[in-house]
């Protein structure tokens, strides 16, 4: 636990806010909000499932914007942000699918079905897992950033499809309940619980992204250190820059 708390000063307020909001949200979801009239207590999974899905889509949007910046400005900082947002987005997408399966089994009678929303979410997960796998292929940070950004921008095309899938292809998954033109179709206490949990998931995601960006910076410094060592070993008398050695 002490290791977990060995945080940088800037991280602490965000972590404290996210944990406090998460504790309040989960308490509301498990003990305060009444059970759904049709589905019973299992509907309480909505308070984690829906915020996880919203947060994942938000993270992929952040990654898309950061990746556009990478392609435009060749910014390695934006690459770190895109990588961090996608890693957290993959985690939240996997949780969305897991929680959906746990909710679907008692309500729909199946763990999984090839419903458009489920299928497009699974495609989203596979695309961004591919992004993470691809990053491991490149040694040169600039080339890794450019290729990964291109993949992220193209993969982002699935995000609006996931969002609109329940409108375009009406099937088993329920349609929009909160983000509707005619207002949310949810009871006030349920909506409040959902929004508190959505805020908690967003704050937590922001903290996870900050941590991952910090890790990326440390990884970059370690890579540069290793390169400098290799340059010194290869040619101790001739000054060569890390970029030339990579090239």
């Amino acid at each position: 636990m002490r290791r977990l708390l060995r945080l940088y000063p800037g991280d602490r307020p965000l972590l404290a806010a996210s944990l406090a909001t998460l504790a309040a949200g989960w308490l509301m979801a498990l003990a305060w909000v009444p059970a759904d009239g049709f589905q019973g207590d299992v509907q309480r999974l909505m308070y984690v499932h829906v915020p996880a899905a919203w947060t994942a889509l938000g993270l992929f949007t952040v990654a898309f914007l950061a990746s556009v910046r990478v392609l435009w400005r060749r910014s390695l900082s934006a690459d770190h942000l895109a990588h961090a947002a996608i890693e957290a987005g993959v985690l939240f997408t996997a949780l969305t699918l897991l929680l959906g399966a746990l909710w679907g089994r008692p309500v729909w009678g199946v763990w999984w079905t090839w419903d458009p929303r489920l299928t497009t979410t699974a495609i989203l997960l596979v695309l961004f897992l591919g992004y993470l796998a691809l990053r491991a292929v490149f040694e040169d940070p600039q080339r890794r950033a450019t290729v990964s950004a291109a993949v992220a921008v193209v993969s982002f095309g699935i995000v609006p499809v996931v969002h609109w899938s329940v409108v375009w292809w009406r099937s088993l998954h329920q349609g929009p309940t909160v983000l509707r033109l005619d207002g949310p179709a949810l009871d006030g206490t349920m909506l409040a619980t959902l929004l508190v949990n959505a805020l908690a998931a967003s704050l937590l995601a922001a903290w996870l992204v900050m941590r991952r960006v910090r890790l990326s910076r440390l990884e970059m410094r370690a890579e540069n250190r290793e390169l400098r060592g290799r340059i010194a070993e290869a040619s101790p008398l001739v000054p060569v820059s890390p970029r030339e050695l990579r090239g």
Partner: protein
Amino acid sequence: MADWGYVIAGFGASALAIAGYVLRTQRRIDRLRRSRRPGERP
């Protein structure tokens, strides 16, 4: 009662997954910080 089994599994799995990710990231940060040379900027 069976409903609560799914609910607890869902909330528990979420907590475990996030805690696991945080610990994995922290371990990697710690390893890289330990490998820093003396005097190098943190």
